[in-house]
């Protein structure tokens, strides 16, 4: 059990800057994010796209913004819990007990939800029958490639993950690659390699087909694919892999009784607290009259939510407003020498 002042859900720009504000006022926090890296939508959706509306920064990319925010909170040494997701919240004696998917537990008076549009999860096959084999022989990521040795593997997708795994697994498995169109979005060198492997019959390449059904009797036996013109084929399969990128799912947040309105959480604009005491929501996931889904709004919301957290984390102390330019306490926290 980790005891802390605040658990932040979401390591996007809003969560990161809120962490900075918490550090400035002397609070500790732990940051949980479902992605395997820091940065949220900035890093996952538009790492290289320029952003033009960060105050005083005429132009920066999602990666640059993330790196600068990470740099800005470095002095505080906060812990990140990546590739993990907050699953369960429970209130006990005015404290929140927080449990994650990977089994981590936190005790905290404050939770700040900076979850954007939800956590990034792999897009799954639309076919109901695939659910039965999910995690066993229908997979959306690969942890141990040795399980595919000498097996028939059918891979769906046209991006780098699909192409890279088709190339990699073709050494030791019978690989079929299925994609919905003739063009691939993967790196040109990988596309070239796939075409070579297909020409010399190392892999089977099938385009303009998509999944129709998976079949098996206890264990997976085959996958049926269909074309838009109505043809179908059945391919023997021990494993079916789908690489369709990531989608954003609200997940467990929807079950915390926060009065969700169109996938957003209503908050007050004084300190961005939700209807539950000690749970705050900031950034794209919160809503209030006049809400703008801008990064700069998320920064403002995070600054005010941090002060809201102070009240519950230090009930016996009075919060004192200070400027970073003048306060020696803040400079100590930042480790700045003068």
């Amino acid at each position, binding site marked *: 059990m980790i005891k802390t002042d605040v658990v932040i859900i979401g390591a996007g720009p809003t969560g990161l800057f809120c962490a900075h504000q918490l550090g400035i006022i002397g609070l500790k926090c732990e940051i949980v994010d479902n992605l395997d890296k820091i940065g949220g939508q900035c890093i996952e*959706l538009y790492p290289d796209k320029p952003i033009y509306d960060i105050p005083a920064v005429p132009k920066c990319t999602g990666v640059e913004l993330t790196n600068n925010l990470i740099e800005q909170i470095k002095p505080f040494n906060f812990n990140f819990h990546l590739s993990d997701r907050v699953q369960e919240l429970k209130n006990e004696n005015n404290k929140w007990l927080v449990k994650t998917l990977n089994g981590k537990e936190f005790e905290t008076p404050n939770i700040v939800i900076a979850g954007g549009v939800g956590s990034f999860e792999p*897009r799954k096959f*639309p076919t109901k029958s695939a659910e039965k084999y999910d995690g066993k022989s229908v997979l959306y990521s690969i942890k141990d490639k040795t399980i595919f040795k000498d097996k028939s593997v059918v891979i769906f997708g046209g991006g780098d993950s699909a192409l890279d795994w088709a190339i990699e697994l073709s050494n030791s498995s019978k690989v079929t690659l299925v*994609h919905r169109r003739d*063009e691939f*979005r993967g790196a040109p060198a990988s596309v070239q390699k796939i075409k070579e492997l297909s020409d010399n019959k190392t892999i089977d390449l099938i385009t303009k087909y998509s999944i129709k059904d998976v079949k098996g009797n206890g264990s997976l036996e085959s996958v049926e694919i269909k074309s838009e013109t109505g043809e179908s084929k059945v391919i023997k399969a021990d494993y079916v892999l789908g690489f369709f990128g990531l*989608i954003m*799912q609200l997940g467990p947040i929807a079950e915390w009784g926060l009065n969700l309105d169109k996938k957003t959480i209503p908050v007050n604009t004084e300190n961005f607290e939700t209807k539950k005491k000690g749970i705050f929501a900031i950034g794209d996931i919160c809503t209030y009259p006049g809400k703008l889904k801008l990064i700069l709004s998320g920064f403002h919301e995070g600054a005010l939510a941090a002060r809201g957290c102070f009240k519950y984390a230090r009930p016996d102390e009075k919060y004192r407003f200070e400027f970073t330019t003048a306060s020696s306490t803040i400079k100590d926290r930042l480790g700045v020498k003068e």
Partner: protein
Amino acid sequence: MAKIKYIEFNGTEHEADVVNGLSVMEGAIQNDIPGIDADCGGGMSCATCHVYINDDEWFKKLPEKEMGEDDMLDQAFEPKSNSRLSCQLIVSDDLDGLTVHMPEKQV
């Protein structure tokens, strides 16, 4: 201005007058028409404003896909050859009478 018809997967029809310059996606969001999520807000960075253009004549008449739209559509729910991202369909008088069909779901 164009009249756009949005048909949900369950068959429910909605019609909206959308001003020129807005996207077909924005027309749905501003009129509270369900079935289009638009998680990324129109940046062609997600695939949750996915629609089908079932009328082949209309599909051909639409502005051509820009680089990247098909790549994004690869990541949509049940993409087909008549799929488009509605955030990329900018409304003009030419689009008056367009009908778009929503997929069963966006995510």
